[in-house]
């Protein structure tokens, strides 16, 4: 078995253990409705992967503008697409938590509002890509936009929700710089973060490979 395959099967087992531990091994959190706090094991990793994906997209965009290698444009677009997908998943899991805790799926809380802006910013990235026909011009404009879009990410993800009062529970690493979480819950969360990062890397490489095949076929046709 190749190392690549072993890693994939390892991810299957790893995430299965994380899922089991999230619901069966981690204790119930105090101060939350029922078992709603267990969503943290999926909500935080999806938000983390979204941020990571937007960072990768920004780095690939910088590399595109520097070296003009079309593969960097492919990397930027693939990563932004996955970022958007994981940001949507973070929004959905957050909404489920909001429904249980606060009685409504959507409350226009600062964190909900900031993620809406983030989703719109990256949706506009794909609208921009779809609007420009010339590949070189599209790649350049998209790269500039992706860099500017990423500038907003630290503000929308980390700053804005901390400036205003929010319904959102205190984050794992809070204002006091301490981790307020049961050690078993923390271990499961770390395991989930590793698993979701692995899943992102796998999906990202598949997307890039598909795009490379598509480009090779287009060149063969010309």
């Amino acid at each position, binding site marked *: 078995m190749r190392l690549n395959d072993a890693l994939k099967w390892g991810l299957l087992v790893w995430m*299965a253990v994380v899922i089991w531990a999230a*619901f069966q091994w981690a204790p119930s959190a105090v101060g939350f409705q029922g078992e709603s706090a267990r969503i943290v094991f999926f909500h935080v990793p999806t938000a983390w992967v979204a941020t990571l994906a937007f960072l990768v997209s920004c780095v690939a965009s910088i590399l595109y503008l520097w070296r003009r290698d079309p593969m960097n444009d492919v990397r930027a677009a693939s990563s932004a697409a996955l970022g958007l997908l994981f940001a949507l998943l973070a929004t959905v899991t957050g909404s489920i938590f909001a429904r249980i805790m606060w009685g409504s799926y959507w409350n226009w809380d600062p964190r909900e509002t900031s993620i809406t802006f983030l989703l719109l910013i990256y949706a506009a990235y794909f609208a921009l890509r779809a609007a420009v026909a010339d590949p070189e011009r599209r790649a350049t404009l998209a790269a500039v936009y992706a860099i500017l879009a990423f500038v907003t990410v630290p503000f929308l993800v980390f700053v804005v929700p901390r400036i205003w009062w929010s319904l959102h529970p205190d984050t794992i690493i809070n204002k006091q710089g301490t981790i307020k979480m049961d050690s078993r819950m923390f271990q499961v969360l770390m395991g989930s973060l590793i698993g979701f990062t692995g899943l992102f890397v796998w999906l990202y490489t598949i997307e890039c*490979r*598909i795009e490379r*095949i598509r480009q090779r076929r287009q060149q063969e046709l010309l």
Partner: protein
Amino acid sequence: MNDLMGITLVTLIIWVGLFAYVYRVDRKVRRLED
């Protein structure tokens, strides 16, 4: 079977299904690359 065990099983089924789908796509891409 309690609610939490049911949620565990459903989540595990979703994960295995997702993995199987992505693995299939991965193999298909590999065949196209060769």
